[in-house]
C-alpha cells in the first residue's frame, strides 16, 4: 500500500512537472517575445528590456524552467506584471470563491442525486424510474453554461428572485448564499443526473450480492438493509466519480463565474487571458492542474484502498 501510495504520488508530481514544462515551452514558442506582447507595440526598448530582465526572460529556456520550479518550492510563482503583487497571493485570494461554488454545487447534487438513484434502483422499471432515467441523461447532456445562462435569464432577469452579479457582501452570509444559489444550481444540475445513474447502477449490483441476501434471511427490515448495508457500499463509486470529475467541475465553475460575474479562479484566468497576463495565467493554470491531479490521485487511492484487485494490478 505504501509503495502504491508513493508510486501514485510520484506519478502525480511527474505529471505536474511535465504540464508546467509544456506550458512554459508553449509560451516561448509564440512568435514575438512575451515582453512586447505584454507591454504592447508602443513600449520603448528600455521598458521591454526592463520587463524581460524582471521576468527572467533573457535566460535560456531550461534555466527559466528550473528557476520557476525552484521559486515554486518556496511558494513563489512570480509577480503580476500589472499590479506588481505576487501571483501566489492573487490566485489564493480567488481560489476560495471557486471552491465554495464547487462545494455548493456538488452538495445539492449529492443531496438530490443519491436519493433519486436509490429510489430508482429499489423501484426498478417503475414509471418514476423511467422518468428519472430520461431526466438524468438529459441533465447530463445539457451544457452547464447554457443552464447558467437560462437560469440567469429566468430567475435573475425575468423573475428577479436572485441577484445576477457578484458574490454578495463580505461578512453578510445571507447575501452571499443568495448570490450562490443560481451558479451552484447551474454547476450541480448535470451532476444530479450523473449521481442518480451511478448510484442506481451500483445499488442494483450491491442488492444482488450475498451479504444482502444473508441480511434478508436474518429478517432485517428493508430499511436497515438498504441504508445500513447496501447504500454504504453502493455510494463508494461516487467518490471516485467526484474525484475524476473535478476537471469538469472546474470547467463549469469558469462559466458560472463569468456568467454571474462572480470572483473566482475561472474569472481570474479569463480576465488574464484577455490581457495576456502570462504570469497569472501560468499561476492559475498551475494551481488548478495541481488541484486536479490531487483530486484524481485521491480518487485512485480511495479506489485502490477499497478494491484489492486494483491495488494488485499496480
Amino acid at each position: 500500500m505504501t509503495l502504491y501510495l508513493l508510486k501514485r504520488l510520484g506519478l502525480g508530481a511527474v505529471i505536474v512537472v511535465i504540464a508546467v514544462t509544456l506550458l512554459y515551452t508553449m509560451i516561448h514558442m509564440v512568435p514575438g517575445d512575451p515582453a512586447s506582447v505584454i507591454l504592447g507595440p508602443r513600449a520603448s526598448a528600455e521598458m521591454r528590456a526592463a520587463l524581460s530582465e524582471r521576468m527572467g526572460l533573457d535566460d535560456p529556456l531550461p534555466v527559466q524552467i528550473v528557476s520557476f520550479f525552484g521559486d515554486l518550492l518556496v511558494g513563489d510563482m512570480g509577480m503580476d506584471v500589472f499590479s506588481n503583487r505576487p501571483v501566489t497571493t492573487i490566485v489564493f485570494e480567488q481560489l476560495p470563491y471557486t471552491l465554495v461554488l464547487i462545494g455548493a454545487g456538488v452538495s445539492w447534487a449529492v443531496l438530490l442525486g443519491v436519493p433519486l438513484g436509490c429510489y430508482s434502483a429499489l423501484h426498478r422499471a417503475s414509471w418514476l424510474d423511467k422518468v428519472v432515467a430520461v431526466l438524468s441523461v438529459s441533465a447530463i447532456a445539457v451544457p452547464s453554461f447554457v443552464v447558467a445562462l437560462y437560469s440567469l435569464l429566468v430567475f435573475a432577469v425575468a423573475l428577479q428572485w436572485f441577484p445576477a452579479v457578484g458574490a454578495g457582501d463580505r461578512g453578510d452570509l445571507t447575501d452571499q448564499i443568495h448570490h450562490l444559489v443560481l451558479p451552484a444550481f447551474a454547476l450541480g444540475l448535470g451532476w444530479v443526473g450523473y449521481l442518480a445513474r451511478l448510484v442506481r447502477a451500483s445499488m442494483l449490483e450491491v442488492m444482488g450480492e450475498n451479504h444482502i441476501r444473508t441480511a434478508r434471511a436474518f429478517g432485517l427490515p428493508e430499511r436497515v438493509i438498504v441504508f445500513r448495508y447496501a447504500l454504504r457500499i453502493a455510494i463508494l463509486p461516487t467518490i471516485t466519480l467526484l474525484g475524476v470529475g473535478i476537471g469538469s467541475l472546474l470547467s463549469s465553475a469558469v462559466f458560472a463565474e463569468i456568467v454571474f460575474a462572480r470572483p473566482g479562479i475561472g474569472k481570474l484566468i479569463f480576465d488574464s487571458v484577455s490581457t495576456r497576463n502570462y504570469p497569472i495565467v501560468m499561476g492559475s493554470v498551475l494551481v488548478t492542474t495541481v488541484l486536479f491531479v490531487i483530486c484524481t490521485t485521491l480518487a485512485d487511492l480511495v479506489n485502490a484502498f477499497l478494491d484489492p484487485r486494483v491495488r494488485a494490478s499496480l
Partner: protein
Amino acid sequence: MRVLGLFWRNLRRVLREPLGLVGFTLALLLVLSALFADVMATHDPIGLSVMDRLQDPSAEHWLGTDQLGRDLYSRVLYGGQVALQVALIAVGAALAIGLVLGMLAGFGPPWLDNALMLLFDTLRSFPTVMFALAVVTLIGPSMGTVILVVVLTSIPTYGRLARTQTQSLKHAEFILAERAMGAGMGRILTVHILPNVVGPLLILASMDIPVVITIEAGLSFLGLGVRPPTPSWGSILNDGYSFVRNSPWPLIAGGLPLILTTIAFTFLGETLRDVFDPRIARER
C-alpha cells in the same frame, strides 16, 4: 451491399428504442438543417439592419433579431454548420490519432506503452477549459484553435480505449495463429486488430460529438472560439448575454439548438452503446 444491409438492420435496432428514435430524429434534423442552411435561411446571417435591432419573433424574423438587427433564425442555421464542422473534424482527428497511439501502446514494447500512458495522463490532467484558455492566450482565438484544443484533450480517451482493446486481443488465439504463420506487426495491427478495436471507439466518438459541440459553443461564448461575424451558437449566446436585459430572444435562440443537439447525440450515443455493447446492455 452487405455492409448497407448490416447498417440498415442495426439502424432499425437503434430506432426501436424510444431514446434512439428521438435522438436519431433530432440529429438528422440538425444535420439536414446545417446542410441546407443556404436554402432554409430567410436572411443573410451576417446582414446588418440596425433599424430592426433586438426585435421579438415575427413573421419576418422567426426567432427575432439580435443587437445588430441580424436575423436569429438564419444565424442559428449557419451556427449549426459551424458546430457540426468543428465536431466532425475534431472528433475524427482525435479518434484517428488516439487509435494509432493506443494500438501502438497496447501492442508495442513496455517502454513505449509507459511513455504513451504518461503522455495521455499529462494531457488529461489539464481541465479542458483551463487548457483551452491557456492555448488561446498563446495562439489566439480561431476555429483552428478550438479544434486543436479538442483534439489534444480527447486523444487520451480514445488512446486508452484503443490500448485496452488491443491488449485484450494481443494474446487471442487468432492473433497467435497469424503470428505463427509469420505475419508482421504491421499486418496484424491493420488487418486483424484494427477492425476489432474501431467499433467501441466509434461509439465513444458518437458520444463525444455533443461534448465537442459544447466546447466549441462555450469557447465562442467566451469570445475565444469562432471569430465574429461568423455565426456560432456560442457567439449568439454571447450577444444574448450582453443584451439580456433588453431582449431574451438571442439567448433563447442560441441555447435551444445547443440543448437539442447535445440531447439528440447523447440519446443516440447511449442507445448505440446499449445495442452494440452487450456487456453493459440491458443492465441500466
